[in-house]
């Protein structure tokens, strides 16, 4: 089964389940029950399932269901839980501060999840686009440090070899900061090469003040500048790929604590008459 056909199948199943939940909720209300108890408990169970995916990851040594199946379940259950949440809240914005925070937390977690699955499926293919290599995120700074060192040496060499400080000055003002850390995060994210094009134009603009040897060194520097840009690109993407979980996971725990509190409040004060 290809990923595409699996996706269609799962969307179909997911939509069918969501529709039957809407129907169930309507029928429950019709039977003179408080439908928010039904949707509420389904929500709690659904959210608990979504949360324990993180727990499953802590037990790779147990013969549990493969994580890939879990993630499929997690993604589609996530969409169903959003539907349940809308049902539960009657699509209204809440009024009290507690409930507003709760509501915002839910949509922060759900929203980051939706964005997360989108980038999870879209960014990886782009990671090796520039270098043709798949780099380990933690090692990118090492490669960048190597490039920076090589460029520094080139700049130093230019001083002695062409007895001019043009390249060295340019290095000190522009290149040294450029190589010091990852740059142009947002441009890389949106696939724009404008910063690189600008920088290369700037490098080319000093070419006319150099002799032959100086131009060779400049060419070499430009190669390093491009290589650095090619490193920044997967760095930016990997940062996003790792970053969204910094929202999704911590807020999940906050959300679950709020959900627990909500259950207590509802049962204590809303009249327990299911």
């Amino acid at each position: 089964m290809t990923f595409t056909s699996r996706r269609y199948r799962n969307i179909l199943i997911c939509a069918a389940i969501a529709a039957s939940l809407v129907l169930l909720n309507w029928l429950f209300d019709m039977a003179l029950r408080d439908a928010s108890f039904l949707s509420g408990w389904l929500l709690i169970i659904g959210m608990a399932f979504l949360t324990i995916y993180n727990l499953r990851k802590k037990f790779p040594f147990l013969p549990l269901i493969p994580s890939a199946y879990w993630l499929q379940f997690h993604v589609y259950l996530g969409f169903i839980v959003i539907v349940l949440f809308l049902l539960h809240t009657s699509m209204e914005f809440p009024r009290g501060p507690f409930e507003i925070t709760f509501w915002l937390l839910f949509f922060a977690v759900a929203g980051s999840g939706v964005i997360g699955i989108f980038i999870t499926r879209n960014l990886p293919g782009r990671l090796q686009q520039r270098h043709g290599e798949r780099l380990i995120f933690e090692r990118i700074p090492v490669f960048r440090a190597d490039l920076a060192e090589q460029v520094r040496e080139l700049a130093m060499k230019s001083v002695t070899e062409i007895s001019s400080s043009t390249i060295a000055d340019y290095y000190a003002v522009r290149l040294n900061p450029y190589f010091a850390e990852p740059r142009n995060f947002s441009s890389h994210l949106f696939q724009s090469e404008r910063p690189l094009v600008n920088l290369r134009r700037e490098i080319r603009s000093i070419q006319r003040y150099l002799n032959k040897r100086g131009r060779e060194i400049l060419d070499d520097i430009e190669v390093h500048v491009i290589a650095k840009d090619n490193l920044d690109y997967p760095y930016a993407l990997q940062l996003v790929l790792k970053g969204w979980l910094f929202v999704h996971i911590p807020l999940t725990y906050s959300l679950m604590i709020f959900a627990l509190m909500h259950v207590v409040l509802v049962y204590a004060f809303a009249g327990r008459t299911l």
Partner: protein
Amino acid sequence: MGLLQKFDFKSSNYERPTLHWVCGNISTGKVCPIGPDGRGQCRASFECEPIKEGDRWSCTRSKSSDGKCKAGPRPDGSCCLPITKCVPVETVRGMRGRVVAWAVSLTIGLLIIATHGSGAVNLLSPGGLTLKHGEVGTKCETCHEAFESGLSGWIHEAFAPSDPAGTSKKCLSCHEMGAAPLQAHSLPRSALDQSALEMETLEKVKVAPVALEFARSLFGSPRKIAEELACTNCHKEHRGTQFDKTEMSDNRCQSCHTVRFASLSMGHPEFINYPYSRRTRVQFDHVSHISRHFEKAGKEKAPETCTNCHEPDDNGLKMKVKGFATTCSVCHLEQITGVGQVGQKGISFFSAPGLDVAELRAQGAAIGE
């Protein structure tokens, strides 16, 4: 530029994402072999630990770290190459673990403040009350008895068994609902059973909505499982000042009423004695009827005494109006049913002013030119 990565074991060792801290020199690529300890402290010391061979100290640096150094150990037996201390950095996962811990403690802290502080009322309230209820008071405990007992009391209350009567007690302290306040329509069981019996005699209409039948078979009707319903089952609060607490869908009526029908126009049983013993809501203008309409309609249709239209109730305390069939219908039935009428049926209460085009044209008035 060629490929950056080398895969051989000499150039690339295991990447360890499970560790919390890594060497701070990672960004320069000169990572020391020992790495930080579990608390993120750098513990780099020297590149090797010299060993005494006879009376000479000799270097023990391993081959993987370029082998023995040229200078060799110091005379006192210490290594000549101290490693520069670094500030270890957190791994991505280490950082995330810390953020999770922060989020959890922050949330719990916030909730403790929200539930224990004096502002709990404002923070926890799920929304404003309706206008009338708002006048009763803004304190939670006015309606929610358990509120005063604090968080532990709430949890206790939350786990207590279902109790519609208890929950509705506070409502009933203001709302006088008779002897059976939590029964349907606040009528005693006997009256409901009586009415149900009457309904049994009616011809059953088999056009009940499928959904309703389905809901009933899935969840049963409330009367079967609960003798009483709490007020809050139907009447919601905390939905703002303008919320209509009494709004109810047709379907919800039918979940109890044993005779079911698709809609008012389809399958609704014949009204018997409608509107029962309730006075009509139509404002009857005695003055205009006696002075104008009865004059026009003629003596035979006009009532002769009060009791033509009015009758005392069972205990003789109140005067009630007789039903439509014996009163209004004498004159108005044909208007309503449309017998012998020209144009639309019904009584015209007002008509919109219009242009008599034929008359205007006959008078030679210029219209629309």
